[in-house]
């Protein structure tokens, strides 16, 4: 017979361990709609910088061939094109006029803490577009569309 106190203690411990994990992350949907720029599929590097402007990590890479990553200049400069930065968060390039929706489980610590989400974009035989989008990650900014400089018609994140 297991003492009641031990069962309660075990339950309290597992709850205490589980709750912070649930509270520390939330699903966030990033929606990126491209212009009809009349070219091939766009490579997009979605990444985050910290309050000091230093690269904090990547959230998504649209485009699977590493030989083209040098055309995403800011991301490439920060990472050296290291595939380990984007293992498990890489998908196909995005066609002109298409909308890419990515839902990620993101850490709460990214929001309202001075982090900025950036997107670099590149299209074959067209101009590279570093820092196509740069939006601060805040709870207030959720749902507000941002316009890109060249290839991205609109970008929003929703929580």
């Amino acid at each position: 017979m297991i003492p009641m106190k031990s069962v309660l203690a075990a339950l309290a411990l597992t709850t205490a361990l589980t709750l912070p994990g649930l509270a520390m992350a939330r699903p966030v949907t990033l929606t990126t709609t491209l212009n009809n720029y009349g070219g091939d599929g766009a490579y997009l590097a979605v990444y985050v910088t910290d309050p000091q402007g230093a690269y904090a990590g990547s959230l998504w890479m649209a485009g699977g061939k590493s030989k083209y990553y040098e055309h995403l200049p800011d991301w490439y400069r920060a990472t050296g094109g290291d595939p380990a930065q984007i293992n498990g968060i890489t998908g196909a390039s995005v066609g002109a006029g298409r909308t890419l929706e990515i839902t990620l489980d993101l850490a709460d610590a990214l929001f309202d803490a001075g982090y900025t989400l950036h997107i670099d974009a590149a299209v074959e035989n067209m101009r590279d577009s570093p820092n196509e989008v740069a939006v601060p990650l805040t709870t207030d900014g959720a749902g507000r569309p941002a316009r890109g400089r060249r290839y991205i018609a609109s970008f929003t994140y929703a929580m």
Partner: protein
Amino acid sequence: MKKTLALLVASTALTVAIGVPAWSAMRVPQDDAKPQPIAALFDDGQEALPLIFVSDDDDDDDDDREDRRSSRYGDDDDDDDDDREDDDDDDASGGALNPAPAGTVAPPQNGLFGNGAPPQIQVK
């Protein structure tokens, strides 16, 4: 006298060092079951040597100038007018590896992701 002895010792050591492996590496009839560790090393090396076909055909990639002109990226000489669409040929160039696609491995542990759940993607 000491000098002579030293020379003799040195020359003997050299002879042994060179001669024993060479002797051991010499071919013997197949039915000789005696173990020959040094010969075995040489045999392993021979098996591992790649078979290279040497051709006098001048195959020096100077026939693809058209492809080079067609791509500003220069390193794409695979005759398929690569348009950056993911056509599953997975040709990492220059030895660079392509990243693992979403869903095949967990997202990186960069502190940005919560519990390692795979991303959900939709293209409209």
